[in-house]
């Protein structure tokens, strides 16, 4: 009997030690895993899980008391809808997650940031006090909505400005540009009207006009005819892969062959290659990720093991995990239930303090309005793959 009691006590003690060692830090991920943009959520989740796996294999994250904790990712599907995104963050706020990484869509990010506390020290503001570190939603300038919102997305303004500047020297005979825009998608719209068009004009190109279509359109004959009539040297398509492919195929049918074809950042993914690799041949897109560095290749390979593909969006999720690890360690996060809200505040403050972070293409500068100034390069579609065309940095 005594032996049995001893064995039970030993077993309990061992379990207790094991439990004590298995401290966890929960990171919530959220993005679209339903609907036509599902691949974004799937890839972000895979990248976050892959990064957590690497971090945990290296021993985990160090907490304030010197102990180590494993990073755990819990991913939620926001279906690319604002109401679901807001509901998820309210739910996540009630759990022990320290920070949330997401969302996929800008139309979720914008209202979601709106429910967060505007200024971190404003006691009269009852907004949610939860740090959000966005990996995908790319519409410009959103993080200024709340001091709890941070983004690690590329600056399209900088990237397209640089692209048009480079095109000036590369194609000196190209003088005119025509746009094609997916009118009902926040990112595409903002990218054409506020970024591509503006930057093209700033670089001396004459904008001849633009054609519009909708995200679920299937007939692009009229729009491409307008494009053909404009006969511009450069055609810039600010649309997501499905309609980009539809337009490219119609351009092929109608024989529209501009000197330069430019695409939207989000189209530098496998989706475009899957839908219309042949027609996309030569399309140039600025991107904040390509597996050209040792770290980049490793991140892409590790993410692939978690059934995700590496692109500018999913690799931002990968980077976010490592940035968060550093912030948790530098800000001495306790990782206990009692300190949950204080830890969230520490993470917010830690993210706000960052002046630069380590990215897969190099150093990312952090701006005062909590946005990222990421390194980038230009890729082009060549034989069914995205290949690096030029590295402006």
């Amino acid at each position, binding site marked *: 009997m005594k032996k049995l009691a001893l064995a039970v006590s030993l077993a309990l003690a061992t379990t207790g030690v094991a439990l004590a060692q298995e401290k966890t830090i929960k990171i919530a991920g959220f993005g679209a895993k*339903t*609907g*036509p*943009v*599902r*691949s974004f959520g*799937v890839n972000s989740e895979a990248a976050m899980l892959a990064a957590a796996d690497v971090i945990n294999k290296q021993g985990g994250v160090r907490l304030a008391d010197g102990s180590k904790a494993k990073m755990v990712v819990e991913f939620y599907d926001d279906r690319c809808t604002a109401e679901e995104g807001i509901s998820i963050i309210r739910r996540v706020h009630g759990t022990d997650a320290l920070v949330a990484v997401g969302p996929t869509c800008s139309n979720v990010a914008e209202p979601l940031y709106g429910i967060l506390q505007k200024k971190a020290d404003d006691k009269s503001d009852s907004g949610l006090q939860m740090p959000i570190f966005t990996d995908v939603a790319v519409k410009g300038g959103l993080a200024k909505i709340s001091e709890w919102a941070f983004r690690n997305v590329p600056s399209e303004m900088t990237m397209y400005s640089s692209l048009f500047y480079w095109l000036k020297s590369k194609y000196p005979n190209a003088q005119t540009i025509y746009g094609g825009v997916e*009118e*009902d998608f926040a990112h595409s719209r903002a990218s054409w009207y506020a970024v591509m068009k503006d930057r093209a004009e700033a670089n001396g190109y004459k904008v001849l006009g633009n054609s*519009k*279509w*909708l*995200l*679920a*359109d*299937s*007939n692009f*004959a*009229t*729009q491409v*005819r307008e494009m053909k009539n404009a006969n511009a040297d450069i055609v810039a398509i600010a649309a997501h*892969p*499905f309609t980009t*492919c*539809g337009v490219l*195929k*119609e351009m092929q*049918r*109608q024989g529209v062959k501009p000197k330069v074809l430019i695409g939207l950042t989000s189209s530098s993914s*496998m*989706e475009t290659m*899957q*839908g*219309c*690799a042949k*027609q996309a041949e030569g399309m140039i897109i600025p991107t904040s990720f390509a597996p050209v560095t040792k770290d980049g290749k490793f991140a892409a390979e590790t993410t692939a093991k978690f059934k995700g593909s590496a692109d500018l969006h999913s690799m931002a999720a990968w980077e976010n995990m490592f940035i968060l690890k550093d912030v948790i360690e530098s800000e001495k996060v306790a990782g206990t239930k009692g300190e949950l809200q204080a830890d969230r505040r520490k993470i917010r403050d830690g993210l706000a303090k960052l002046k630069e972070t380590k990215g897969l293409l190099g150093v990312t500068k952090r701006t005062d309005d909590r946005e990222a100034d990421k390194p980038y390069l230009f890729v082009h579609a060549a034989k069914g793959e995205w290949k690096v065309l030029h590295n402006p940095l």
Partner: protein
Amino acid sequence: MLDFLQAVSDGMLFGATYALIGIGFTLVFGVMHKLNLSYAAASIGAAYSGLLILKVFAAAPAWAVFLSAFVGGGVIGYLVYLTCFHFIPLSNPLAPLMSTVGMFLLIDEVIVHATNGMPQNYPAMFDDVMIRAGGYTLRGDLLLVFGLSVLCMIGLLALLYRTKLGLATRAVSQQPVAAQLCGIRVARVNAMTFVVTGLVGGIAGAMMGAAVGALSPVLTAPLTVKGLIVTVIGGLGSIPGAIIAGLLVGGLENVFQLYRGVTERDLYVMLLLFVFLVFRPGGIFTAKSGRD
């Protein structure tokens, strides 16, 4: 003027895909007096199933993909019948309507999960053929879509008016109780109607994929709406009506887009629907026969 003519002809040719979807809606409604709201999604699902042949024979020609979609459409049509109609109490009109809404969402999500929402390249026939007359052009692949939809209409009319199955279908459509008393197996006729509309849907989905050059789950909802508009404008239960309304909606849609822009286009298409509902609620071709 040339732009107008081009917009009308492009739209009408593309409208042939709406017509095919309209035929499916109208046939089921004509026979069972029920709306199958999952029809357009099932058609796109069938088009996706056509791509499966490329997994086995990577070099399979476009016609093999279309044929595979055609067969897939029939299978999906039968499954939709079993799950949404056969075991559902048809006396409650809301029950099959809601079950088909559920099926619509289910098919949509199955596609999304199977492809991660990624657009899939879709083969086409005669896509390199362009008939030109000055600045005016006609797409070869859309002419094929148009031709196929006309063939489908002829085939369906022949099936309805020249075969025993057609006779039984018309009998069930007009007098289901009397048809049953005459020894017609109503459930079998209903199932066959779904298989036939599924086959047509398979062609419609494949033609839609071929016309765009790619398939995406984003197509299902707008195609459902267009199919329903075509069915109402053409006249519920009328196959020629669905064809004419499909071409009409396709053509007008392009004209509205040309003159009022893409953001107002659908507004005018909806207005057209309301005009029909108010002034000609039976559609262009009101069904002659009644039903018990």
